[in-house]
Each structure stands twice: as C-alpha cells, then as structure tokens.
C-alpha cells in the first residue's frame, strides 16, 4: 500500500501563516515549504516569478544528496545548508526530518537574521507537521475521495 501524506485546509492555513510571518520577519524574498520527496507544500513572498515546481524538486534532490553524504560520514544529517549568491542567497533547513524549509533572501536581510527567524518558525512547523502526519495516518481529516474513484474515472484521464 502506498503511504500517503495528506494536507488538509486547517494545516495548510497554519503552515501558510508560519511562512508569511517568517517571510515578513526575516525580510526574505520568498519562503517555501517542500516535502522531502520534492512536492511544494506552501509558500510566501515573491513566488510568482519563481519556478516553484522545479525549485522544489531540485531542492529535495540536493537535500537527499546531502543526506547521503552525511550517512557516508556517519553523521545523522546536515540539518541546514546555505548557498550564497551575488544577488540571492538560499537557506535550507530540514524540519522534523520530514519537510524542507527554504528561505530566499537578498541584501535587505542577512544570514544571522534568517537563521534566527528560521529557528522560531521551525519549532512551530514541527507541531503542525505532527498533527498532519497523525491525521494522514488515521484518515481523520475528511472522508477519502479515492474510495469513490471508478475504473472509468481513471480511464477517462487518458482519453485524449
């Protein structure tokens, strides 16, 4: 059986709120929350001009590769990464071993400020994620739409 991660409205609102506060308090350009498999979950800030799908996939690949390096070095994980560009810097942290928090910032902010604000946001995100995982496992959020899917529904996707 496929393990599912399910996002419900309530948790998404909470995650969005955390992203917005982090975006504001850290003077960041954008904040992204990505699951470790590369799916974008939430964002705040100037994301219209970003290719969020590609950024999410590459970030997850990067985090997975760094995790691979960590295990080769007998480290549990490297919890954070920082890439400094000329205009944009990219700060990545792993939250609750499950999701990735990305902060993109420019000269209006600083690494110190971003680190400080990320620490606060991380603690809050862990709590929301725990609730989300519990709900996903118990299916308590709302009745699953998938039990009603028919073979015809699936076939119709491919009638082009």
């Amino acid at each position, binding site marked *: *059986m496929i393990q599912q991660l399910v996002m419900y409205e309530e948790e998404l609102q909470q995650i969005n709120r955390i992203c917005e506060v982090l975006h504001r308090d850290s003077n960041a350009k954008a904040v992204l929350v990505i699951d470790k498999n*590369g799916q974008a979950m939430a964002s705040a800030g100037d994301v219209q001009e970003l290719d969020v799908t590609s950024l999410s996939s590459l970030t997850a690949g990067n985090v997975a*590769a760094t995790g691979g390096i960590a295990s080769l070095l007998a480290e549990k994980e490297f919890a954070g990464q920082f890439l400094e560009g000329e205009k944009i810097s990219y700060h990545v942290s792993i939250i609750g071993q499950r999701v990735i928090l990305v902060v993109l910032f420019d000269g209006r902010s600083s690494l110190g400020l971003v680190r400080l604000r990320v620490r606060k946001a991380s603690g809050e995100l862990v709590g929301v994620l725990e609730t989300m995982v519990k709900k996903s496992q118990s299916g308590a959020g709302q009745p699953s739409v998938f039990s009603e899917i028919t073979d015809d529904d699936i076939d119709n996707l491919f009638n082009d």
Partner: protein
Amino acid sequence: MSFINYSSREINCKIVYYGPGLCGKTTNLQYIYNKTNPEAKGKMISLATETERTLFFDFLPLSLGEIRGFKTRFHLYTVPGQVFYDASRKLILKGVDGVVYVGDSQMERMEANIESLENLSSNLQEQGYDLNKLPYVVQYNKRDLPNAIPMAELEEALNPTKVPSFEAVAPKGVGVFDTLKAVAKLVLTELRKGS
C-alpha cells in the same frame, strides 16, 4: 509516497524510470516533454554530464487532468543508469509511487539489463519497498534495432512476474505514452486501494 492536498485539490505522485545506462530513460521523458501541451507540463530538468549522460536525475512535472475534481500531477524522474551512480539511484527511489523499468532490447545489453533489474529490486528493498507490490511496468526499448532479442526471451529474463510490458522505440515515441499511461493507471488504482 503520494501527496494529497485537499486544500488545493491536487494529487501528486512520483514515477521513476529505471534501467541500465543508455537504455533510453531520458529519451522517454524527452519525447513526453516534446509531445505534451505547454499548459500540462512544467520545465524538464536534466542534471547531466557534458556528454549528456544523466548525472543525478531528469525531472518532468506533468498534469494528466482531473479525477473527481482533483488535479492529478505526476512527477517523472529518471535515474542515472551507469553502474557507479548507485548512491544517486537509491536517493531517487525515495518516496516512489510507481516504477517503469526500461530494458535495452539489444543482445549485448542483456547482462546490463539483468544487473540493473536486480539493482532496482535490492535498492527498493533497502528503502522498504517490494517490487512485487509496487505499481510497476516494463518497457522494452530499441525494438527497431537489428540485434534486438525476440520479445519472448526478454519477457522470460526481465519480466518473471508478468507485469504489463510494452515494446518501444523511444526516439520515435513508439510505446512511450502507452507505458506512461499504464504505470499512471496502476498508481491511481493503488491510491484507491489505499484509501
């Protein structure tokens, strides 16, 4: 691991194309990319060497339409086929929902095919998956080459569990969408079972 977003009404699934080096995994994705409407696809990303061998992965996000009001999004990945990139292959299998094994029909690639299939099975096991339980299809690529092995032999060697299999000539698109549709259907059927 599929990701279902009730808030934005989206189902996200991950499909991985696996197989020996130069079997045509990237070519499959390139063909899908070229033949898909712009609004249904995102950017295709290839992390490749200067000689266009896959170094880490190729990535193509694809929207297949709606089921019961939910948008279905498939993230297609390839692995690097060359033997020494095994650490990367393991990483890409994390969170996989469906696998396409792409075999090379040429006689001289048979050993590489078998080695890659065994590698797929053991790498999945390491991640806690069982190939026999995962949505899984097989594609025999390069059917147009003169040294292609007869299908019956390929089936016997590479598809002992008789999962859906397809003949393909990936650069011309033969069998490419049939393979994708088959694995996508299996993934969605599995999602239904899990609900």
